[in-house]
Each structure stands twice: as C-alpha cells, then as structure tokens.
C-alpha cells in the first residue's frame, strides 16, 4: 500500500512551542502534500513539496523531504491555539494511479 503513516498520532504542546509531525510512505513519489483539517471541516492545503526538493518554507511552516528514507516532516514554529487541528500528509506516486493518498493524520492540540 502507498498509504503514508504519520507519527505521532496525537501531539499536545504549549502555545509558543514548536510542533513537529512526521510522515513515512512506501513507494516512490511525484510529490508530497500537507493538509490541515479543523474538527468537522474540510481539508485545507498547506504546502506541496516535489520529489526533487528537500525543504520548503511557508510562513511558520517548514517541510522537509527525504526521499532516500521515504519520509517527510512538518514543523510549525511558535505554535498558536488556532493551530489546533489534524494534519495529514498525502502522496502522489510516480507510477500507477495518479491520485492523492492520505496518511492517518496527526491530531495536534495547542494548549494556551
């Protein structure tokens, strides 16, 4: 299965701290994307990193990709209560069906 696995499944930190979430996958990918989902809502795209990229930044977000280890991490710096949500990585494989396959997600809670 191409499906990614995310680690940890749940993370609880204090406001102002940094949050790191990891994603591992099994097949060679075209790109990897991170999405955020507030409780009971749709998903919002955060960042896309292509297989030939190693790191990408967007505001307080930093994503790294290590294709040799088939893993990615999402770092949120200076967390805020509003960052509380579930975060999903999603991959698009190089071969086979060109579709987005989501990991199980990390539930992030930021305590004020």
């Amino acid at each position, binding site marked *: 299965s191409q*499906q990614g696995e995310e680690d940890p499944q749940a993370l609880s930190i204090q406001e102002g701290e940094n949050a790191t979430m990891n994603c591992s996958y099994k097949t060679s990918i*075209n*790109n990897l*994307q991170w*999405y955020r989902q507030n409780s*009971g*809502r*749709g*998903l*919002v*795209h955060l960042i*896309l990193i*292509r297989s030939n990229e190693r790191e990408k930044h967007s505001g307080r977000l930093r994503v790294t990709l290590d294709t040799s280890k088939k893993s990615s991490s999402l770092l949120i710096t200076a967390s805020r209560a509003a960052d509380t949500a579930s975060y*999903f990585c999603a991959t*698009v494989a190089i071969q086979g069906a*060109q*579709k*987005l*396959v*989501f*990991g*199980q*997600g990390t*539930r992030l809670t930021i305590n004020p």
Partner: protein
Amino acid sequence: DAMVIQNPRYQVTQFGKPVTLSCSQTLNHNVMYWYQQKSSQAPKLLFHYYDKDFNNEADTPDNFQSRRPNTSFCFLDIRSPGLGDAAMYLCATSTRQISSDTQYFGPGTRLTVL
C-alpha cells in the same frame, strides 16, 4: 470568493433510504473528487471526474454513484445507505487529473444513518 460548496452540511437518512449529497464549485476546475472520511481516519477516495470522464476506485462499493451534469456541479448518490456509510463526505477539486496540483476541499457533509 471562489470556492467549493457542499450542501447540506449535515444530512440524516434512514437505513436503506436513498440520499444525494451535492457539491458545487466556482473555481472552474476540470477535476472533481469525492472522498469518504470516517471518524479519526484518513480521507478515502471514492471516485473522481475529469471533465465528464468518470473514474471509479476499484474498492468503491456499487452502492455509491456519482453524477456531474456540468463543470460546476457534482453529486454523490448513495442508493441504499447502511449504518457503515455514516461518515463525513468531502468534495474536492483540482485543475488537472495528475495530482501534482493542490486539491481544494469543501467543508464536507456529515451523513448520519439511522
């Protein structure tokens, strides 16, 4: 603002009673997707349309059907809902079938089956 809209946000149906969920988009995107997401799980792709071309996932039950009458609208029909079909249903769009681009999601419809 350009967006993906899903109606209704909450839908309650009875076991075996057909139900239709709707999705509309003002983004003029070629591709529309339907995902099923059960509690604390990853979204699971049911099918997608590339323009009028329908693409069903191999493991999507026959109970689930879809229609796309025009670029803007896409419907998910559940012919005979079972208790196991209770879930959040997410509609998404993208510009191209090859998922190198961002997918834009609607807010979802939460389906309850009594």
